[in-house]
């Protein structure tokens, strides 16, 4: 799994690429929590994520909760059908703000 961080006026866009699974989710978690610690709102771009497992979703949940605690936001953008199914299973589609595009995500956190 690779990631790219892009600074925008409203916050940062963290784009992951590849699978977020038991092997790679610790890296994803670290990247997201680092951004949270810097006090930034985050758009997580999942458009190039083929598969995200429960450990990846757990990392999103933890980062979202930490961001909220610090008065920041974290939204998801371009969530694939498979990832959305995993989120829905634990009713997390009602917890996260899920945007169709990164631009919509930036508008949501702005």
């Amino acid at each position, binding site marked *: 799994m690779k990631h790219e961080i892009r600074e925008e006026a409203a916050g940062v866009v963290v784009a992951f690429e590849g699978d977020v699974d*038991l092997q790679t*989710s*610790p890296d994803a*978690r670290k990247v997201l929590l680092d951004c949270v610690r810097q006090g930034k709102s985050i758009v997580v771009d999942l458009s190039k994520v083929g598969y995200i*497992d*429960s*450990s990846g*979703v*757990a*990392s999103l*949940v*933890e980062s979202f909760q930490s961001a909220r605690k610090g008065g920041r936001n974290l939204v998801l953008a371009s969530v694939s059908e*498979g990832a959305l*199914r*995993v989120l*829905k*299973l*634990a*009713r*997390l589609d009602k917890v996260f703000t899920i945007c169709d595009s990164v631009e919509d995500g930036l508008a949501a956190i702005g």
Partner: protein
Amino acid sequence: MSPETNPPPVTVIEVENLVTHYGDREILKGVTLDVREGEIMVIMGGSGSGKSTLLRHLMALETKTSGTMRILGQDIDTLDQRQFFDLRKKMGVAFQGGALFSSMTIGENVMLPLYEHTDLDPMTMDIMTRMKLEVVELGGFEDLMPSELSGGMIKRAAFARAIVMDPKILFCDEPSAGLDPVVASALDDLILLLRDAMQMSIVVVTHELESAFKIADRITILDRGHILMVGTVDEVRNSSNERVYNLLNRVPEDDSMDMDEYLHRLTGVEVNKDAAL
């Protein structure tokens, strides 16, 4: 123009000519079977048909006498210990009685595979555990002990533990056994949800017809160590095979017996049929 054809289904388990013994007794007598990605395969059969033995072999828990088995594309005879360990991590098992540790909370039971098989951060493991408890509708029950749960809740907790690692294949041994119809039906719904939401391939051994017909994409019927038929619910329901009909309609087994075989079982002594009176 050639007609449009669907791609062949991806197979997650392929068993060819599986033969197994307990001691001298042959249990599976050349079973050939496949389980496809994202399907619920129900294995049915009467007592002694070999269905539980087959399930244990599909879970790679038993040593076969002969035949080949490929699980998630890997021939299990060629795997070293590490590869075998990695393969087992992709398989979840919901045991018949739940098999929860009575000295651990529900949360600790569900989290156990994560502790054993991963180096994830404790917070990640905790969230994963709570998510899976939510999926089986036991959210908020993580601090209770197994003794404080009903039979249906124990089964749900066992399912949460079985899926906590997001397995590719889930095995369920008699999930509805001992449950009242309403609870059993809810458990069937959960199995269907896991297939649809997580694209899991699920192998269920059951003797509950209603449950089998509700959840199965395909049904395998075992009879005395042989596969009697493999088919969809409709194909099984409409089968003209007498033994399939008897199983579905709970017609008692034929009372006739092979006297030599029966005496062999009782005495352990084999008689040469030609020499016998």
